[in-house]
């Protein structure tokens, strides 16, 4: 396989995988991410959000991931109903679940990260610069988040068969709404 093909498969695997197959693979990766997050204390407390915490229970880790997935799937399905004539719910569910797979990188990276003490961080924000691993995690989170957003965009594009500015505008709006909804649900439902 050429490097160009590998790259296109990395940013858009949905031309080959969708539906139940994508859901199966995506859910497996999400479960592994959830387990890893419990040990690495990485909380995905938002659709495109990640924070390091000092104590994260097994239940909380999966609650965050479940709320994130629920928000994305519901909002993207609603978007699909508006912008597309016909699509299958399983394609949205599968492709959106698989889109979250890159977050496993951050979950693993969090295991090797030493986060600065929050009380000291409030007193002196420059203390962040003393933790090289923390800075590396922040730097790593940028391309991973961009990769995830690209995957989510392609997931909506393939699942709904829509192109152009209509798709771009609808996706940005849907992503913002799903982020807000996930934050509200986490605030209302999750007990830390």
């Amino acid at each position, binding site marked *: 396989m050429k490097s160009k093909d590998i790259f296109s498969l990395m940013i858009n695997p*949905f031309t080959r995988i969708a539906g139940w197959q994508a859901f199966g693979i995506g859910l497996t990766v999400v479960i592994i991410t959830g387990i890893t997050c419990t040990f690495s204390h990485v909380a995905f407390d938002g659709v495109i959000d990640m924070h390091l915490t000092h104590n994260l229970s097994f239940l909380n880790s999966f609650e965050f991931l479940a709320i994130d997935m629920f928000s994305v799937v519901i909002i993207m399905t609603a978007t699909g109903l508006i912008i597309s004539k016909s699509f299958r719910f399983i394609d949205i569910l599968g492709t959106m679940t698989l889109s979250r797979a890159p977050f496993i990188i951050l979950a693993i990276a969090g295991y090797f990260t030493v986060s600065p003490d929050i009380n000291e961080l409030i007193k002196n924000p420059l203390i962040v610069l003393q933790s090289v691993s923390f800075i590396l995690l922040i730097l790593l989170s940028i391309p991973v988040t961009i990769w995830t957003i690209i995957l989510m965009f392609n997931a909506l594009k393939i699942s709904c068969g829509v192109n152009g500015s209509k798709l771009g505008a609808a996706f940005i709006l849907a992503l913002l709404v799903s982020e807000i909804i996930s934050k509200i649900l986490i605030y209302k439902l999750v007990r830390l």
Partner: protein
Amino acid sequence: MNIIQHKLNIIYYYIHYMNYFITFAKYNFNNMLPTSCPSCHSQLKVKCLKCDNCETEVSGLYDLPTLALLTSEDQQFILRFVINSGSLKEMSSELKLSYPTVRNMLNEIITKIKANEK
């Protein structure tokens, strides 16, 4: 001035007919039915049909069939679609593509056919 104009016209016609020749050569080498005019890109019509057996020729002006107006890739897709009994699921496993990708390909062909019918 007239001489320059005349020479420019010759160059123009030379380029024009070279382009025409190259396009037709391309059609002949690929054995493809040309659907648009190589000169003005308008849709071509069938003028003459010939019996291979008795060499009878029928002349007229007939529209090309809708499917003939599609690209060879699209025609191949339709052929496979019919062979697979119109099952997108079977098409996706044959083409090693996902179901929504195959459905989107079909939707694009439908859009092209509708545009050609207009």
